């Protein structure tokens, strides 16, 4: 069989393959060069950047749970200035797509960060992390308010011709409502899921295991939830859906593609093996070759559900 087609295009961005590394789980792309040929990754999504550097939360910031981990990093990042100075020049030398993930506590800050990065021409797309506390509304997350999520998209859309991906939070009743809202405002894609709100307690000390009491749950434990949210979303929008959550193997990634995700992002699994995205990308290629699939795109959305089972017959 001839070469398997693995390329993915989103507007002006071309990615070698459909396996990306998720924000906050691969630093700024220059930390693991000993372990990974980063040019084999479909796209590198940076740690969330805010305008000013952020120290992040007090320790402890991470704790392992069954099949997962909770984190409370507090968006620790080096800020736009240092990013442009210290990281962007290296990222520009790469032969892979770079997606800057943006976090902010006001809409103005989202705008300002995007404008600075856009002016520096150092990336191929933006991923907007809306799971950030909105300081103007008492710290409630932008991402759990559909109006605010739409507004961020509306404000950012005119500022760039590059693709804008809105990264949705799963901590809402209906994630597809959010996906539709940002699609209407011109988002090029949605990525999901960000972490689930989770908590763990140290019974000996009677204190939470992370300093902020609750944090974000990630890892294989949440994969079923992520897959269900992706399934809900692909049925509701026509822009590409990027699947994230608990992916550690080729099989996991294929589950998301079959369900309808155009791309997957690998998060927590990078902590165990920073080369895992490359290995998964190669595994998907092998799967295609074995199954005589010419283009990885042909896997996407091929889930066969039983139509005779009515919707009202819910699973409860």
């Amino acid at each position, binding site marked *: 069989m001839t070469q398997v087609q693995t390329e993915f295009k989103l507007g002006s961005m071309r990615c070698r393959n459909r396996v990306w590394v998720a924000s906050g789980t*691969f630093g700024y792309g220059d930390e693991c060069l000993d372990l990974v040929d980063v040019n084999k990754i479909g796209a590198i999504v940076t*740690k969330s950047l805010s305008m000013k550097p952020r120290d992040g939360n007090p320790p*402890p910031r991470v704790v392992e749970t069954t*099949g997962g981990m909770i984190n409370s990093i507090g968006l620790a990042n080096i800020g736009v200035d240092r990013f442009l100075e210290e990281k962007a020049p290296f990222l520009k030398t790469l032969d892979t797509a770079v997606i800057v993930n943006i976090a902010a506590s006001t809409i103005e800050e989202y705008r300002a960060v995007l404008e600075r990065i856009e002016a520096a021409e150092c990336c191929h797309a933006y991923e907007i992390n809306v799971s950030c506390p909105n300081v103007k509304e008492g710290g409630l997350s932008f991402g759990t308010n559909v109006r605010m999520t739409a507004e961020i998209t509306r404000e950012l859309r005119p500022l760039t011709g590059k693709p804008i991906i809105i990264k949705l939070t799963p901590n809402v009743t209906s994630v597809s409502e959010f996906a539709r809202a940002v699609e209407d405002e011109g988002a090029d894609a949605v990525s999901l899921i960000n972490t689930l709100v989770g908590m763990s307690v140290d019974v000996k000390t009677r204190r939470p295991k992370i300093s902020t009491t609750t944090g974000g749950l990630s890892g294989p434990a949440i994969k079923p939830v992520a897959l269900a949210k992706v399934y809900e979303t692909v049925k509701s929008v026509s822009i590409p859906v990027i699947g994230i959550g608990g992916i550690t193997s080729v099989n996991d990634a294929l589950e998301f593609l079959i369900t309808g995700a155009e791309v997957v992002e690998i998060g927590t699994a990078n902590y165990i093996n920073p080369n895992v995205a490359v290995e998964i990308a190669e595994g998907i290629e092998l799967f295609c070759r074995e199954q005589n699939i010419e283009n990885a795109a042909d896997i996407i959305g091929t889930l066969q559900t039983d139509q005779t089972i009515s919707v009202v017959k819910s699973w409860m």
Partner: protein
Amino acid sequence: MKIELLPVVKCEQLTATVFALHLRSSYISDIIQPGQFINIKVQTGNYPLLRRPFSVARTHRDVITIIFDIVGEGTRILSEKRPGDTVDVLGPLGHSFTLPSAGTRPVLVAGGLGMAPMPLLTQNLKANGFSNIETFLGARSKQFLVDYELTNVKYATDDGSAGHHGTVISLLDEWLENNSHNELSIYACGPNPMLRGLQELLRVYSLSGEISLECVMACGIGICQGCPVESVNSTGRYRLVCNEGPVFDIHSVMIQ
């Protein structure tokens, strides 16, 4: 750093719950420095999920050794490794202790399993011509003292069942009172309360020193930002234990 599947040479039981696991890696044994660590995926699959960090305790030819205590599932699984098994190791990681300048006297202070990096440090100091090493080793009780390839050891136990009756810090305090403080190079590792005690003691004596910190880590390589320690006089508020440490100047960090 590299990820390697290392063959298990031996898993040796040292005390009721402490084990020495010997692994073959010419790559790591060649370049490892005292105080550096390796990050181990204790078994395949998603459980436990994350790697577990361990100081390298010694090297012998192409064999590296870690010494660990069974505290949870990960270390329990490690303790069951047998020759013929392999273990998935990422390393070496982190910054090492700084070797002292010639003429100084190395003082090693360890509490409990904080002794783990000390044999390699001892090996290294000896190889660099330091023969006058002082080692202070403390534990709750006699059966928790793990004296593995250490040199010139003075013991302390909280319950007095061996050596000095009291903490290793009070033992060191006594020793410092009766000995010259000139040209000491102090290296310590152990639980945070012990390290806080040491920090205060060294402040009193106006001595400096290096400590190796432990904290929960997700990645061990600087990509998760999960392992901060509050720092004194640095640009940002925090430094990362995994790749800016685990060895720090004792007076440069706020020990939790």
